[in-house]
């Protein structure tokens, strides 16, 4: 595959946000967490693209929207290597990794069936500890603790 064909897969963006290096299996969850379904600006989503680091990756390009940092960090659990590019007038003006916040609100479902968050309409809240593969999430309500890999996401 030539490089020009590679670029064709993802059209250039004048203004907006590009989120790259999302693991393929996490792509649509990331779309949901970021609320991209509800946007009316142009959105390009690519998935199962070749990636040296991830094997297979997804990418999201959203025109005319710059997401707040805390919104983007909400995908850090499922896409820890995601790279955010802020584009203004075709130029990348900012490039940074997402980072896992200290608390995750409304993203992860508590796997304890007796937890109050599975019985009342309230956003879940998890306290994050550890890094990388050792990430642990403790439910603020029932204290049930799971590893980052075990956590099931919701929205």
């Amino acid at each position, binding site marked *: 595959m030539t490089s020009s064909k590679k670029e064709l897969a993802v059209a250039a963006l004048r203004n907006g946000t590009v989120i790259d290096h999302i693991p393929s299996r996490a792509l649509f969850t990331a779309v949901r967490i970021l609320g991209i379904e509800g946007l009316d600006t142009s959105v390009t989503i690519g998935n199962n693209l070749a990636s040296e680091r991830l094997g297979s990756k997804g990418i999201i390009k959203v025109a005319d929207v710059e997401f707040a940092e805390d919104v983007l960090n909400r995908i850090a659990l499922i896409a820890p290597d995601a790279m955010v590019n802020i584009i203004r007038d075709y130029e990348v003006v900012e490039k940074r990794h997402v980072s896992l916040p200290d608390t995750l609100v409304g993203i992860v479902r508590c796997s304890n069936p007796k937890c109050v968050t599975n019985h009342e309409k309230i956003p879940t809240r998890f306290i994050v500890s550890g890094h990388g593969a050792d990430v642990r999430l403790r439910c*603020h309500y029932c204290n049930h603790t799971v590893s980052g890999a075990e956590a099931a996401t919701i929205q």
Partner: protein
Amino acid sequence: MKSRSLVAIDQIDKQELLDLLARAQYFEAHPNSKILDGKVVATLFFEPSTRTRLSFETAVNRLGGRVIGFSDASTSSTSKGETLKDTIKMVSNYADIIVMRHFIEGAAQYATEVTDVPIVNAGDGANQHPSQTLLDLYSILKTQGTLEGLTITMVGDLKYGRTVHSLLMAMRHFKPVFNFVSSDELRMPQEYLDVCEREGIEYHLHTEFSEDIINSSDILYMTRVQRERFSDVMEYEKVKNLYTLHNAMLDGSKPTLRILHPLPRVNEISTDVDDNPKAYYFEQARNGVFARQAILTRALGIDPLKL
């Protein structure tokens, strides 16, 4: 104003624990007064627990307060489908403080987030039961004269037993030595061993309930091993009698040793222990009233020592 709710024992620091224990001591000396005169205490028991409810209600009555509430969710609007939030908001209009017990874990924490009325957690499923822990601490203080530097042996179900987890968290302030005696299947969870490591607390894991361990102990904290905790029934049959305390096992123990149990007991303490002066589990329950008087007055911002 700082929230005076009490949801979990590890929310409060050493100083506050000592303050609560001083209050409990005061109430043991002065169990009856009128310091809650004019106060209404709601006891909301979404799950029946007669022992805990009577203890809280006795605590209120002895201090001259009034009690409203229910002892079973089937007699409340919960049975009509009312959410916990709505029940708490409604009761908040009537009561100065809410004591609640729920089978849903995290219910008390959530309640503190929907009302400004102080919440006292009287047990939320397998999660937290801070008044039990405070009465355990008070029992230890009363029988040993100190909380510092004691050897505490916990026996039985250390995996699911919330009382032993909370007791560990509360005792971590007082430089204890812990013995954890259980089958492999019911051993103390790693997160609590990590707490000990972090705080530099000496602990020993045992699968055998030996007299050497008993003889080195200041406190024996016995818990019930429940059949339903075992994935393998054979395993339960194998271990169910290994962690039973018999009177003869106490022959070489310290004269000051005391045996605690959160009750109800089944067969983990043989009845021949009951008449041994080292058996403390029945008096332990009596301390619950003083501990709860301490918790209620703290939650209401009333200091009996300064009245």
